[in-house]
């Protein structure tokens, strides 16, 4: 058990946001859950962080977190980057909640650009930080038009983008933020997670919430919702595979980061999810370069 608690600091409302704002965000989230994949506008507040630092996700977390929650924060799979540490200590300070790095211990996980490798369970909430929520912006700059396209499920344009990918690269070269259809209706950007994580969106037992601070949108994938990655019949969706297992924990199932070791071409592949990798190593799994 490595969950730790801290006392709420004086001078802040619980979880920083005032109660009125939290209720407003929760109402938007309820609507988002009721219409899976639909982007719900909300009155985004100023947060003590600049846009691009996860203000959308932080507001969602702040609106939901309760004193009994256990919070985990990851940034590209790691619990210990500056950004993850800052957000975690922010909530420890303003909400006094317990924090953890263990995926299985967390009730609330705020994430930037990954879904943990350890399967999530019912009752857990995953909050994604979203830089750009609108998947159709690429070819259609008019907001009124994209809204109509969503309402009428006119998503041919997204396939035009994938078509163009194949023309240029011989295959669908989109590897991050790979577009999905949620619950057979709404086209959704899953935020810049690797497409490796897309299958984890499908019928996940956890509640997945997405917050875009700058564009003032939230959306949701409720537990056990169908999430399908777009593709062509003759270019089916496929996730990344690596030729070697993780150099530290020998996992063959995880998303691996390439690490350059020296300037002579030395490199290793290790799990991007640092907690998953550490737990496996503790359990005795040993990769080729394990200490």
């Amino acid at each position, binding site marked *: 058990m490595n969950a730790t608690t801290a006392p709420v600091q004086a001078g802040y409302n619980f979880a920083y946001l005032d109660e009125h704002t939290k209720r407003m965000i929760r109402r938007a989230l309820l609507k988002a859950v009721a219409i899976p994949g639909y982007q719900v506008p909300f009155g985004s507040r100023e947060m003590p962080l600049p846009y691009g630092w996860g203000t959308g996700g932080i507001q969602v977390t702040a609106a939901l977190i309760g004193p009994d929650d256990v919070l985990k924060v990851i940034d590209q799979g790691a619990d210990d980057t500056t950004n993850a540490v800052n957000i975690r200590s922010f909530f420890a300070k303003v909400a006094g909640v317990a924090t953890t790095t263990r995926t299985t211990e967390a009730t609330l996980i705020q994430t930037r650009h990954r879904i943990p490798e350890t399967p999530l369970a019912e009752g857990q909430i995953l909050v994604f930080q979203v830089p750009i929520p609108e998947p159709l912006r690429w*070819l259609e700059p008019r907001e009124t038009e994209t809204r*109509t396209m969503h309402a*009428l499920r*006119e998503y*041919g*344009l997204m*396939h*035009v983008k994938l*078509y*163009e990918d*194949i*023309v240029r690269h011989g295959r669908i070269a989109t590897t991050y933020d790979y577009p999905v259809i949620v619950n057979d209706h709404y086209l959704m950007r899953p935020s810049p997670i690797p497409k490796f994580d897309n299958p984890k969106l499908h019928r996940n037992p956890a509640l997945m919430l997405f917050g875009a601070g700058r564009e003032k949108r939230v959306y949701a994938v409720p537990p056990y919702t169908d999430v399908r990655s777009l*593709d*062509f*019949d*003759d*270019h089916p969706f496929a996730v990344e595979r690596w030729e070697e297992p993780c150099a530290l924990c020998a996992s063959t199932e995880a998303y691996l980061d390439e690490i350059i070791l020296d300037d002579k071409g030395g490199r290793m592949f290790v799990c991007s999810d640092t907690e998953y990798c550490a737990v496996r190593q503790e359990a005795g799994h040993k990769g080729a370069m394990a200490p």
Partner: protein
Amino acid sequence: MKPGRVLLQVRGLSKFYGERVGCERVSFDLFPGEVLCIAGESGSGKSTLLQTLAYELRPDAGAVHYDLSGRGLTDLSGLPDSTLRELWRTDWGFVRQNPRDGLRMRVSAGANIGERLMAIGERHYGDIRVQAQDWLQRVEIDDTRLDEAPTSFSGGMQQRLQIARNLVTRPRLVFMDEPTAGLDVSVQARFLDLLRRLTAELRLAVILVTHDLAVARLLAQRLIVMRHGRIVETGLTDQVLDDPQHPYTQLLVSSVLAA
């Protein structure tokens, strides 16, 4: 040509911009496979009429009925947005004066042609590509240009690509607003030739707006002459041009002959 059942029926159609008349009390019938030109000076209401016919602009008075497949003549004012938009991208086509308004300049010619196919649910990359290639050839563009963006095409090729991009779903009616206005005379001729061939081959109905009576003479079976938003004269193209009845049409024709 024997006029079968009406494809598009227009009655008392008016569109205003505040106090200003866009088009007023326009009525006519269009038959399948018919090419109709709308001529008149700049500002006479041609573009407004075209957009109102296609329901891109909502009329302030009057009605447009279209022979929807499976439903017969249907008042467009009663159609839900979804049906209207489906009509726009399947059974109708649009060729714009400025290729930037009618093409996606940032994606390849193939993607431009394939867009409608993908919009109606085609999900086989290879098949879409084959059809796009076929349509490039049919509009006389070298199919080695399939993967190039239209920005690398000449003006004439861009207009022909607009045609291909529309015809891929086999529409029955195409709306064109001054499609040759930006082209050199020799390039214009080639475009008009192609258009004449395709409309005959595919039994395509076209409503084409032009300020150029020579274009009307070449293409259209029937001609509508507009002034101040109203139809001043209409009839078979050759009759109207050879024996204009209305003083305004006489003026237009004599100005062409004088040039």
